[in-house]
């Protein structure tokens, strides 16, 4: 009986907290799945753990934004500025970053299955232990990026530039390296 009382008290508190926790709105952008935030100014925003699945963030300004552990599944970040953004452990399967700027971005442990980084600039980005299986990096610039322990299974690296990348224990398997600069050849 005492256990039931404690449980019900906890449950009521949880429900009350859930009802009070309304979503954020930052500079005209609602922070929820499928948000329509094209070109929004989200620089330095704290979006850690937020659910932005399917959001349209194309052209958004996200420099130094904190997206650690956020859900960006299927989100559109084409042309977005993610300079020095924190994307550690972000879940971004099938997200598109075409032509996006990710210079110095931290994508450690990011899950990037089937993500599209075509023509993106990932100069000096940290992709340590990131999983990018089936992703596309066509024409992407990965110069000086940290690829330590990252996984690139069945990845399209056509015309990508991997000059100066740090590749300790990086896994490249079944990759397309046509026109790629400094891609592994064996």
């Amino acid at each position: 009986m005492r256990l039931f009382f404690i449980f019900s008290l906890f449950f009521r508190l949880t429900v009350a907290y859930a009802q009070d926790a309304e979503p954020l709105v930052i500079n005209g952008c609602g922070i929820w799945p499928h948000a329509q935030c094209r070109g929004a100014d989200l620089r330095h925003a704290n979006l850690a753990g937020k659910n932005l699945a399917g959001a349209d963030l194309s052209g958004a300004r996200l420099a130094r934004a904190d997206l650690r552990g956020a859900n960006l599944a299927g989100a559109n970040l084409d042309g977005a500025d993610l300079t020095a953004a924190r994307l550690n452990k972000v879940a971004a399967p099938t997200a598109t970053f075409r032509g996006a700027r990710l210079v110095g971005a931290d994508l450690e442990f990011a899950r990037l299955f089937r993500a599209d980084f075509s023509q993106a600039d990932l100069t000096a980005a940290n992709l340590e232990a990131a999983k990018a299986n089936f992703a596309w990096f066509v024409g992407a610039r990965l110069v000086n990026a940290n690829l330590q322990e990252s996984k690139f299974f069945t990845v399209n690296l056509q015309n990508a530039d991997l000059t100066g990348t740090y590749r300790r224990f990086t896994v490249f398997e079944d990759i397309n390296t046509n026109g790629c600069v400094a891609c592994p050849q064996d």
Partner: protein
Amino acid sequence: MEHNTHRHPRRFPVVGLRRFLIGLAAGALFASLNPASANEIAVAPDVGLGQLPRLGSEWQAANPYRGTAAAAEAQTLGRAAYNGACARCHGADASTNAAPAPDLRNLDRSCRRIADAELKAWCQRDNDAYFIKSVRQGKVILGITHMPPWEGVLKQELAWAIQVFIESRLSGTR
């Protein structure tokens, strides 16, 4: 030796034909399972527009039927259109989470949790924009068509009616 030369010409073609047919069947099965060749084709459902208010050729940004007098008919027509066009992948009557394609009842789940009416309406508008963009453009991911574009195939009225129907299928969960 002579005996063998008489047997082989007769047996080889039979075995060869059998192998050829098995190979053909296996190839057809593989082709049907290969995602690259699993492209769905959009076929318009055989459903009329009834008395639904006509929306013209310009696509609306938000659902024009939700919460209006036309919602009941939209739901009925939406159900028929859904089962004719979407159920093949998303499950019959939008009532299963075991279909190969996503459970569409969860599309506006986050919006339903919002208590503030203004924020909720805003979230719903964003969700409508996502829904109609998905319908019009389909889901083409890295060159693979997971869902075909329905623009030019499905009438706008039916697309919004389908959304009204899906939202009517929600369970009691938030």
